[in-house]
């Protein structure tokens, strides 16, 4: 008997893997499509990998023992101050909400990234989905015809099925390495459309035969990758940022994070459900202050441009925006003038769909060494984000075959102070 499990090779994106299958859209009237689009719920998830310092961003403690060299500046919301390294975001605080009392469980990257992005639920012997895969499942792909979970990241891309956990590979991430479409996406010019169609028909037949002796979800994922590829083939213009106004390119910045945020905006405009943008290199154990002096402004500019653009397009009513890391950074400044990992009392910034505007939830003590109010774990934040999107996180369940599973940690609740 054949092995029912697929191999990673079968999920690699290539032209061959992308060919074929019908579009998902095109079956609704324009009016209905417009209505659906207006009701569309989407997420932008900005992941600053390694750990942005809360003290050099959302929860500055100037002129204190651990406060570092930077000032706090006023924002567009009276009484709320953030780091001077975020001047553009400060002007848009009236769109945003900050939770300053986040306490999570891991102080290592290897465990922290996974636990945070999977919501750190109780252990039930299954691997929970990353937030992007969860949203792909719970919100669906909509009518965009594009994959529901797209990850814009530096370096390599591909189909990251592991993110989906027990939901199955179909809910994995389509990762656009360096913001570029998968390699060999377009049909080579030497192959005619008719030949291409013929090859596709052959591929479908092979798929059917392959499916006969395998688990449905693996073959579903395989077909799904083809479908998505077919859609991407029709939307290659999405990736050509050079055609955007130079003003936009300047506002977002020419570095990786700027370009990737601009691509993320286009993907959201086209209706992708969940767009994750990752920036690596935030693990500033050494020279933290010069590091943040360089890094944070390169986040600030495109993040603020994104918030401004989403607001101007009325998209903040539909799009939930989250910016975070796997933890914060220690108040203590080490001998390398760095800050180490700190899950004890850190901050997450969010805004948009379902959230109050211009608020701060939770506080840390004067030195930033502890939380002075109710601490919130990642499970609280998952409840908050689900509920902001209209998902009843306390009652809604996944079904892993016949096993019911809560979608967020059942001992936790939403952060009411930030829910609209």
């Amino acid at each position, binding site marked *: 008997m054949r092995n029912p499990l697929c191999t990673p090779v079968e999920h690699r994106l290539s032209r061959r893997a992308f060919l074929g299958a019908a579009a998902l859209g095109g079956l609704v009237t324009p009016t209905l499509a417009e209505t659906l689009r207006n009701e569309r719920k989407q997420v932008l998830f900005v992941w600053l990998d390694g750990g942005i310092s809360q003290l050099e961003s959302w929860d500055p403690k100037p*002129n204190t023992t651990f406060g570092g060299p*930077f000032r706090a500046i006023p924002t567009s919301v009276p009484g709320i101050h953030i780091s001077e390294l975020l001047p553009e975001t400060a002007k848009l605080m009236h769109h945003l909400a900050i939770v300053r009392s986040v306490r999570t469980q891991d102080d*290592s990257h290897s465990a922290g990234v996974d636990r945070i992005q999977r919501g750190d639920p109780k252990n039930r012997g299954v691997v929970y989905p990353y937030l992007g895969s969860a949203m792909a499942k719970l919100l669906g792909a909509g009518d965009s015809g594009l994959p529901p979970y797209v990850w814009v990241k530096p370096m390599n891309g591909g189909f990251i099925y592991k993110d989906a956990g027990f939901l199955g590979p179909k809910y994995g991430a389509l990762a656009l390495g360096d913001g570029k479409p998968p390699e060999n996406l377009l049909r080579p010019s030497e192959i005619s459309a008719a030949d291409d169609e013929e090859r596709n028909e052959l591929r479908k037949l092979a798929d059917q035969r392959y499916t006969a002796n395998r688990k449905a979800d693996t073959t579903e994922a395989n077909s799904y990758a083809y479908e998505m590829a077919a859609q991407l083939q029709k939307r290659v213009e999405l990736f050509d940022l050079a055609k955007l106004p130079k003003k936009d390119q300047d506002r977002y910045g020419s570095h*990786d994070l700027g370009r990737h945020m601009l691509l993320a905006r286009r993907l959201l405009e086209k209706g992708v459900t969940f767009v994750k943008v990752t920036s690596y290199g935030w693990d500033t154990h*050494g020279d933290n202050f010069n590091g943040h002096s*360089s890094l944070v402004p*390169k986040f600030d500019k495109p993040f603020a441009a994104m918030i401004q653009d989403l607001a101007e397009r009325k998209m903040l009513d539909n799009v939930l925006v989250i910016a975070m890391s796997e933890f914060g950074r220690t*108040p203590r400044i080490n*001998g390398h*003038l760095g800050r180490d990992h700190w899950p004890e009392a850190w901050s997450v910034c969010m805004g948009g769909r379902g959230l109050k505007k211009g608020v701060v939830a939770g506080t840390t003590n004067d030195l930033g060494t502890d939380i002075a109010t109710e601490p919130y774990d990642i499970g609280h934040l998952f409840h908050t984000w689900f509920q902001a999107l209209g998902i009843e996180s306390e009652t809604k369940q996944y079904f892993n075959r016949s096993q019911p599973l809560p979608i967020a940690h059942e001992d936790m609740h939403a952060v009411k102070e930030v829910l609209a």
Partner: protein
Amino acid sequence: MIPRTLKDVGKPIFPTSQILRIRFSPNGEQLVAACTDGTVRFWDTAGKEGATLRGHSGWVTTLAFAADGRLVTADSWGALTCWSKDAERKKLWSITAHEGWLRALAIREEEVATVSRDGTVRRSKLGNGELLNKTSLNADLYSVTYSHGSDELLIGDLFGKVHWLDTAGKRVRDFERNDFHLLDRIQDVGGIRGLTFSPDGKTLAISGAMPKTGGFVQAFPMLELVDAATQKTIWKWKGANDNEGYLHDLKWLDNDTLVGVTSGQPGQGKVLVWNAKTTEPALVHLKLPNCHSVDAAKQLLAVSSTNANSSGNGRGKAAEYRHNHSPISLLSLG
């Protein structure tokens, strides 16, 4: 004559704060420190603590004495302050010299030059802080020195460029030392952290590191000696390991001898003494972790380092969450 070893003189001084810069007073009798708690602290060479100057914000980032003993201090919020030369150390004047982190200053006769993260270099009157001129160089500026025997300024930036300006702020020339900079992902790392002329003005020392990564910041400390007239490299030294970090401070002891200190990953730190004619250090002192500043007076070296076990993820098991501090060691050059 470079000694074979550096011997401790007395017990280390234990300040309550971390220290970014230490300097001896011109007569060598006082040691003064720029502290991350916003204070400026004094000790005599026996380790007895004297005055504490307050009024700065953020970190006190650097300081320097005028020849007559007046003290100029700077902070990370852009303030520049001048204190009297007498024992009272009265505040003579204080100005907001820059829009943000004032990283380095230099004094020549009745003028003080400052550079900042705000990308500008400013000349002020030493007497009252009055602005003489200000020039934008559109880069994060890390180091500044007066050219030997003139009022021209050399400024080192984050990207490894040395800007040479005349007294009016006009460009005389610039030269690049790209090894001192790395763009790692989206982080610009490194920078020319120090520029120092030899006492005879013939040689310029450029110090910092060759970065290997951002984030964690793995970097090889680096020192390049340059012919001041031609800007040609005489020699360049690079540390052996990428965990050694930056050459944070450098001092010419005389025309033939330099001393520098390094701080890399927690626990890594060296005091290095070079014969200016030889690339490899003649003396390497390994007993002090994470050294950030050094100065010399009267055959005495003062080195600020960092307490042991300064790093660690999370809260740790200790009941109290403690900050780190910078012990100051006095070492004999004799």
